[in-house]
């Protein structure tokens, strides 16, 4: 057990709720509570710095649609949202693929469908946890990706939450303790649970100030033919 790993956190939750680390039932409930706290914090919509990741993945000749899950599986990660894609050309330069709405990209691709050509991807759209790049790759390329990771429940004792170490105990343990105490019921437990939630709320606000600083990229919604760069000539 290391400081801040899963076992450390659920043991602290057990201690805090006066449960028993040697009791399998209590351990199972504490694990559930810590995971619940973890998922809850990660899913509040706050732009947590610790959720932002970047990676590279390969696209294949002629395949323009890729699901988040397929990309994540290839990269052994879970993707909550893709924000930005980048492209390296053969000369070592590159560009950021423009993101646009599904209809916008469709209009572009539709306008060229009679004589569609493959090429280096320069734009993409996303819907239903998948992306479509355009034009379809005329050969295999490696795309860069900036994304927000999908937090997963911890299973193994040695797993470490994505939260910075400094915030793991302060955020996850009070929430988990409160959950455990709520389960137990009784006035004394309820009061104690409320106090833990007060602790959690305070820690959450402070954590938001400290670590929810990420700036979400803005979509640059553009129409085909807006500028030269976006002129498509088959």
């Amino acid at each position, binding site marked *: 057990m290391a400081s801040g790993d899963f076992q450390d956190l659920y043991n602290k939750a057990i201690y805090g709720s*006066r449960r*028993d680390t*040697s*009791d399998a039932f209590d351990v199972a409930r504490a694990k559930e509570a810590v995971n619940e706290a973890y998922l809850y914090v990660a899913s509040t919509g706050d732009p947590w710095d610790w959720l932002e990741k970047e990676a590279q993945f390969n696209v294949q000749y002629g395949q323009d649609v890729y699901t988040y899950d397929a990309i994540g599986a290839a990269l052994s990660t879970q993707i909550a949202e893709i924000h930005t894609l980048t492209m390296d050309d053969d000369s070592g330069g590159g560009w950021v693929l423009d993101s646009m709405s599904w209809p916008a990209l469709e209009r572009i691709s539709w306008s060229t469908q009679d004589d569609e050509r493959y090429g280096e991807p320069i734009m993409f759209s996303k819907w239903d946890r998948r992306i479509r790049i355009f034009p379809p790759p005329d050969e295999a390329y490696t795309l860069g990706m900036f994304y927000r990771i999908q937090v997963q429940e911890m299973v193994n004792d040695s797993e470490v939450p994505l939260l910075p170490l400094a915030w793991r105990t302060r955020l996850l343990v009070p929430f988990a303790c409160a959950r455990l105490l709520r389960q137990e019921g*009784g*006035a*004394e437990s309820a009061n104690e649970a409320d106090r833990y939630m007060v602790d959690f709320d305070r820690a959450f606000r402070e954590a938001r100030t400290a670590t929810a600083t990420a700036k979400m990229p803005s979509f640059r919604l553009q129409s085909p033919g807006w500028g030269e760069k976006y002129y498509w000539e088959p």
Partner: protein
Amino acid sequence: MRRLSIARPFTGGYKSDTPDYAIGSSEASFAQDMIAPLGIARQRHGWAYSGGEVVAANLGAVAKTTFSLTSNDVTVVSRLSNGYVLKQDSPSGGTTLWANPRGTSTYWIPRCVYNGDLLFCAQDGESPMLRYAGATSETATTTGTTNLTVPVGAMTFSTSTTFPATVGSFLSIRPVSGSGVSKQASISSRIIETNGTQSFTSESIRNGTTSAVTAVSTTVTVSPIGFTWPAVPIYESGTVAAVTGGGTTVTFNGTNLTSLGVNTTNLQNDALLVDPPTTGGAFEVADITGVSGAVQLTTSSVINGTAGTRIRILRRSPFKDATVHKGSLYGTGVKQYPNRVFVFPATKDIGIPPGAPLPKDIPYDAISRAGYSNATVTGYTALSDYTAFSDGLDIPSRYDSTPIVALLSTSNQLLVLKPDSVYGILGDFVSPSQSTLTVAKISDGAGCIDLRSAVTYESVPFWAGSEGIYTWRNGAVVDLTAGKVRQEWQALMRGYTTGSFVTTGLVAGSYLVVSAGALDSTKTGGAIVGLDSAAPTNRTFIYDLRTDIWLGRVSNFNPTHMWTTSVEDGGEALLSVDGAAHQGRVMNFYPAVTGGSASDADATYPRFRAWTSASLAQAEGIEGETRFCDLMVHSNVYDQTTPTSTLDISVVSGGSLYESPNQTKNLTSITADTTNRVDRFKRQINRVGRLHQVRFDMSVTDSSNQNSEIPEIVMSFRDGRRGT
């Protein structure tokens, strides 16, 4: 969190009758090897061996007392296998005092001390009761024909041959006349003075003739063991048919003698008593020396015996139990009359006829009274002159399906214990003419299951029955098990069968020890309590008489017989023998409660175990979910050196909405220290449940352990879904 403090836990007593969730917080749902001499639960000490090993093992009973005649303390034991009675020698070994001639058919149990004699009762209802007066230096039994000389008016007997004797030995003779003809039945009298090996003075036999008995050839036995007068009629309804053989062969109408198992062993003989031919006449009495036919016997002296005259066959107190009550010896358990109680006149020397004058005042002039031409004793004209009181003490009637098991004396009445009832004998029996004895039924139930369980200590009786364990208090039978361990006891007794035993003993005036064993385990399943994984074959309980609580079980101590004694220079002891692990040894349980060594004498350590109520959190209730958070144990586990004694603690929790089955949490043990002080140990539990129970187990006892006690435990709880 709320706290529950239990001062002096477990001293509320062991109560297996009550579910563990329904007992009080200071009571114990299970307890073993626990005593509480100062009101604090602690581990008992070890019992000790008393004296050396008796080589002839298979011991069945033990007794020790101070003998007034010899002014010494002697421990005697009896053997189950052959009925021998032995003196326990120091430092080891055993010397036979009584070589039972009847083989394995019976064995003797010491039951009381009367007139300075320790009385051993044969358990076949046929063999004679034995008297032992403390003779130790001469333990041989010497029987021989010798020329006996007794001067006129003397009580000193001289023999022509050697008879090793000492004060406390018994002189057994058949009274003789000057002519040398044996008269009457044999008698035993203690020897109160010796002068070499050929001259000794009897306590109560005198030559009352006007002429000396000089060199009369007769049979004499000098032995550490004596007998009683044949005062017990075992057959009363025959009549003389004919007397032949010169007056010593008697044929009668009546029972087949073989069914009576007539004892013709010399000087232990059964006797023939013939009614006077006319009212007011003299009885005739003689030893039966042989059985020559189904209805024919031979006697030691001439019987006139008119045809048609009633005869009785007398036996030498074949009591299964005897006790002293208001100065009289009461006996019962005679095979032919299992419902009858016999009683000797108060203070009477039981070696001579009941009609003889009181000892010390007027010695029995056996010599003079035998100086007749036949077996008639002048002046002995009543049946009660020959027999211990036999009329009117059939309880409840002459024939009843439940024989008397034991007699116990109280300060008021004599309790007569049957298997399923209790009767009382009220009144006194100074003599047959001064008898006020009446019998009253005391109780249906509360009977006695085993003679060895019936004891009296300082006039307070205790006995065990199939339904409970009893005492007599304020004129009523009190069941000590009621509401405490009664169901467990009854379950044990369902396994009582032939060869089983239940015995009780008192120790330190404060504790009653009850041991049951050789039980049929196919029937004792209901006695599975606490740690038990199988139906028991034996169990020993200990009861605190001061606080009226059961302290629980005793491990490694399951005696077949116990004897409580207090001797002048040896202190008090609860002596015991068992039929198994400690054969040949006499165990003394007294140090176990008064401060003996840490271990039992066989190097087995006591193992204190105690379980609290299972409803600690709710204080005698089961409603409400509660988390058992912390436990504080105030204990003193004190080893004098190199502490290794260990008191284990565990908590069993269950019945939770979440976790229903019982779960055991083993806490960090308490290890002894070398400071004799109560320390505080905190342990975290944090288990949830409706039922919580704390268990202590003294798993390791160091040889230097001085004290292991738990004065207080404190618990903190957090209530959960109360009322759900």
